[in-house]
């Protein structure tokens, strides 16, 4: 992401401590996993690799990951109580320390989400300062970038052609007070996975539903909870 730094990259992000890579970044990976799963999971297993596996308790990486899967933002104080809230929501969770291979970044987690209909695994790494990469979805290599505390992002699965993505972008730009700051895309099982980072006001649930109805769009999910107007 070679963009000009924002003043608020320095004066921010606002986050729940203690670590931008082990807490804020972890939360962001959790948000991505939930958005890509595009359903409500009833069970989630986290495989923690490298530094994530070693120091996850001290940095509350576990609570942050679980909070992210429940769509908490990185600045949400409820991250502290993620375990209790997951129990209330009947979301089963487990943390397992596992070596994910030599090539995996030291701060990597593989998240397996399940409900009665489907199952998905998402692998991501927190690469520093709240910046993250999603590297695998269901054993399929992808490369999607995210950054904690900077943008509100949408994840979408689209038909694999540029026109479809352009059309999608055009529809977002039509929304008042919202503009596209960046688009990141990756091939995925003959489809395109796209991360659309938005600037401006928060997008509404009704607007996301409209976007999902566009031709060639399989699903659209927001990384964090939407305003239901």
């Amino acid at each position, binding site marked *: 992401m070679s963009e*000009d*730094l*924002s*003043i*608020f*990259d*320095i*004066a*921010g*992000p*606002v*986050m*729940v*401590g*203690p*670590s*931008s*890579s082990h*807490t*804020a970044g972890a939360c962001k990976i959790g948000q991505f996993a939930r958005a890509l799963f595009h359903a409500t999971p009833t069970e989630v297993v986290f495989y923690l690799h490298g*530094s994530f596996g*070693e*120091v996850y*308790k*001290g*940095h*509350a990486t576990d*609570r942050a990951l679980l909070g992210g899967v429940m769509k908490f933002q990185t*600045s949400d*104080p409820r*991250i*502290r109580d993620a375990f209790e809230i997951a129990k209330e929501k009947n979301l089963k969770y487990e943390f397992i320390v596992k070596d994910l291979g030599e090539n995996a970044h030291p701060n990597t987690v593989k998240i397996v989400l399940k409900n009665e209909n489907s199952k998905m695994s998402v692998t991501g790494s927190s690469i*520093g*300062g*709240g910046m993250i990469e999603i590297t695998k979805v269901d054993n399929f290599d992808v490369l999607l970038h995210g950054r904690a*505390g900077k943008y509100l992002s949408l994840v979408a699965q689209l038909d694999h052609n540029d026109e479809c993505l352009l059309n999608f972008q055009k529809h977002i730009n039509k929304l008042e007070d919202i*503009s596209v700051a960046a688009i990141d895309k990756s091939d995925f099982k003959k489809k395109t996975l796209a991360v659309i980072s938005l*600037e401006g006001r928060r997008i509404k649930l009704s607007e996301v539903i409209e976007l999902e109805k566009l031709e060639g769009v399989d699903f659209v999910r927001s990384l964090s909870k939407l305003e239901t107007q």
Partner: protein
Amino acid sequence: MEYQFKTAEEVINLCKKHKISISELAKRYESERSGKSTANVRERMKRTRDVMYEAIQKGIKSNERSKMGMVGGDAKKIYKHINSTSKIMGNKVTLRAMAYATAVGEQNACMRRIVAFPTAGGSGVVPGVLFSCSEHFKAGKRKLLKGMFCASAVGLIIAEGATLSAAKGGCQAEVGAAVAMSAAGLTEMRGGTPEQCFHAAAIALKSYLGLACDPLGGLVEVPCIKRNAIGCMAAIGASDMVICGVTSFIPFDEVVQAMNNIAEIMSPKLRETALGGLAVTKTGNMIKRKLGLKVTTEL
């Protein structure tokens, strides 16, 4: 791009050209790059300020300890003494700055909300210095925002020319950067020129070059929080020296280059890995064992 900058030299020239302060330049820079109004940018900085204020206020009243029990309650201890001037060698401003910086660091360690300004590890210095000094000036909130914008511009120059990540550059890149940013921000708040702001930042950063990031158990607790507190003294001291007429012999941009050079030479063991320095002391290893981490070095 009219207001774009990556170095202190460019900032000083732009400030001269437009007859504006560093904080005003930072605001216009952000407005230009994001396409938002300066009023909108200012509003966002106000929200940032409010989060900092909340963290300080909670922190100075809290007895809560972090999960590992290494830190907690020190901000309250320090803050209790800000009026006992006979007992304290520093003054009320420095003591209060240390209390505030500790408060933010402790809140971070206890999983409360903070602003990573510029990072979570160095998040105490800027609020510590700027809030304490603005209380001393009896300054309105406007002046505090000036300090914050100016500090952000200095942080941006460090990020462009070197790094703000301890994993890349050690603690000089986190607490060191925060001290330089605070020194500049404070200097602008008390009416210093852009040149003076960078002299203060240069003097401050020079004193922090080469500082290792060697936290116990890899946690942002020991020695991070106290380093933030002591960093406030350095920032206020650097700004005071500049107000007395002292200048930095080495320009700020060159100090940033030196910082980057040191980052490249620095052993990875001293860059947030908990494999050297304080992290491998007897006490450091005790914490590692408690966390179930591998002990690699015994001193």
